[in-house]
């Protein structure tokens, strides 16, 4: 690393070196943005209501809110690393929310949670079959599955069933222990560790990067690309289901629109986190920061009384601006 550093650093060279460091480790810049955004929100909140925002409680709330988004974005990260995108994460999460709250009363909590996860995995598997085996464009496949799922859920929600959100799900989705630690961290942190370590150290993790980088080379090297894709989409479905379970725990009831507002942010979090939409580069660490940044941004916009419409426009603009920025930095070298 240091061998290439020039002896006399001109300002321009120093700037280029700094740019290099930032583009190699977007996490540094993202952490800075996250902290800065928190401070800005604090200032705005003090100006508006005289109350501080930079408090342990608010930090803990931010993590509590960010967990479902970060889990949706976890599956999205894996899929986007392979060069695809999953637009069915929101309806898959909604499915899990309905299944877990709809079957808990009759069959018990364990059964309900397992069934919800199985549904998530199954929906992901169908996506995977379409993308990996039939080579359907991921976007169209997942959008189609999402519309089919939503139709089926609408029918299900009109049938009579006893809705009951299990206590443990409620606790996981909305409570904290030691005053400041949200319970959903107990779900999110192990999954996050598993993904980060798995992507880095397991053969499957490396294959995800390889498939996203060059599927043809992968196939020629003997990788069964379709198996990798199949598992990635199935995992994405399962993670979305976990997010859906946390969401129903937070909201205490399932409804058809429970996860819909998280669809675009799940893509945005991944893009903000520096994972290339073309696949092959990025990781989950950046996505976590992306989810945290979006959660604070959401708080800031709520404090500023921004309408849902304005938020939507802003998210669109952010995705665009960041994708543009990353495209520029990656084409520079």
């Amino acid at each position, binding site marked *: 690393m240091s061998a290439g550093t020039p002896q006399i650093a001109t300002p321009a060279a120093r700037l280029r070196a700094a740019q290099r460091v930032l583009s190699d480790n977007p996490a540094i810049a993202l952490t800075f943005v996250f902290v800065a955004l928190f401070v800005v929100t604090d200032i705005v909140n003090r100006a508006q209501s005289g109350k501080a925002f930079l408090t342990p409680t608010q930090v803990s709330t931010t993590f509590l809110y960010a967990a479902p988004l970060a889990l949706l974005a976890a599956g999205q990260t894996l899929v986007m690393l392979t060069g695809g995108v999953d637009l069915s994460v929101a309806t898959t999460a909604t499915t899990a929310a309905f299944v877990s709250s709809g079957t808990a009363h009759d069959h018990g909590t364990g059964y309900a949670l397992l069934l919800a996860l199985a549904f998530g995995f199954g929906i992901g598997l169908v996506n995977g079959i379409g993308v990996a085996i039939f*080579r*359907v464009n991921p*976007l169209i496949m997942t959008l189609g599955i999402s519309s089919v799922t939503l*139709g089926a859920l609408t029918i299900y929600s009109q049938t009579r069933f006893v809705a009951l959100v299990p206590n443990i799900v409620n606790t996981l989705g909305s409570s904290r222990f030691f005053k400041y630690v949200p319970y959903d961290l107990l779900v999110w942190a192990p999954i996050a560790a598993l993904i980060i370590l798995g992507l880095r150290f397991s053969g499957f993790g490396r294959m995800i990067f390889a498939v996203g980088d060059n599927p043809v080379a992968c196939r020629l090297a003997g990788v069964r690309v379709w198996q990798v894709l199949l598992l990635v989409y199935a995992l994405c479905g399962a993670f979305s289901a976990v997010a859906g379970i946390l969401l129903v725990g937070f909201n205490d009831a399932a409804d058809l629109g429970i996860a819909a507002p998280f669809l675009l942010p799940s893509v945005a979090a991944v893009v903000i986190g520096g994972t290339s939409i073309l696949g092959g580069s990025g990781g989950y660490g950046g996505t976590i920061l992306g989810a945290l940044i979006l959660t604070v941004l959401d708080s800031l916009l709520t404090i500023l009384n921004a309408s849902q419409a304005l938020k939507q426009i802003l*998210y669109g603009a952010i995705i*665009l601006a960041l994708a543009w920025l990353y*495209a520029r930095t990656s084409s520079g070298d």
Partner: protein
Amino acid sequence: MSTAAAGVAARVRPNPARLARRHGWTVGVYVLLLVLLLYWQTIPANWGSFDVQSLAIDALPLAFAAMAQSVVIISGGIDLSVGSLISLINVLSAKYMIDMSFRNALLFGLLLLVGSAAAGAFTGTLIVLSRVPDIVVTLAMLFVWAGLALEILQIPGGGAPQSYLQLGTGHWWSPWIPSGLMILLLAFAIFWLPLRWARPGLALYSVGSNRNAAYLSGVGVARTRIFAYALGGLFAGLAGLALSATSGIGDPNAGQYYTLNSVAAAVLGGVALVGGVGGLIGPIAAAFVVTLVKTILILKGVDQNWAQVIQGTLIIVVVMIGGLAIRQRART
């Protein structure tokens, strides 16, 4: 190597085989449409001109949306923002046309078409300038347009002058000729036919099938891609205006339906997602097929939501078969 050889072989081969290969799919879609139409007219007890009218009303916005999507896909892109641009034009027209005279409403519609084409051109320019993949940019624009639509009209409402509604729901000469269908044909004849075999149309196909080759042959790639999105925006604007004329109101969420279904209609209509293949005649028929499937299901007494599930499943199956077809074609 093998593709070059196949190309030479195709040139030597007699014309009928080539014609069948190039237009076989489109003819197939029309046969499918015909079969569905024949089946459809047996279901209602008193099938008549009214049913024809309502089919045209249901299918008109989707047909325009399919045209919008097809133009962009042919040029090698994909436009996920079609649906929300339709919503935007829909709410704009419904909100402001309601108190206008027919003449002003038409002028305003024309203005919206220009604006819609400009919006498409804007998206295209962003894609060309940023070099970000089409999917990301149009996904971002999906939310920008949808947000704007929601800002303009929070809940469904608005309207249009009666004479304007007649454009979408009325008929010409005889009750068997829905005016929506005629406007569709007119738009096709005005905005697509003159372009198809002229310089811009050919550029569209060349950029879609091989961007580098097009560049090396002197085609303005950036200009052509922006043009494709502008033309797509124009058709999306027509879809939005058609939606106001056929539904009579503006709805900020009405466009969602068209994002996926426009892609489905394009693929079903023989437009390959790799770009450079297909036309607009097929997707128009496909839009009617997609609409007819739902109409038939509902006439058969199937619940509205089940109809959505079945329609979605059929679309996925169609796209899967399309994917297999591409693989087969690549293999031979």
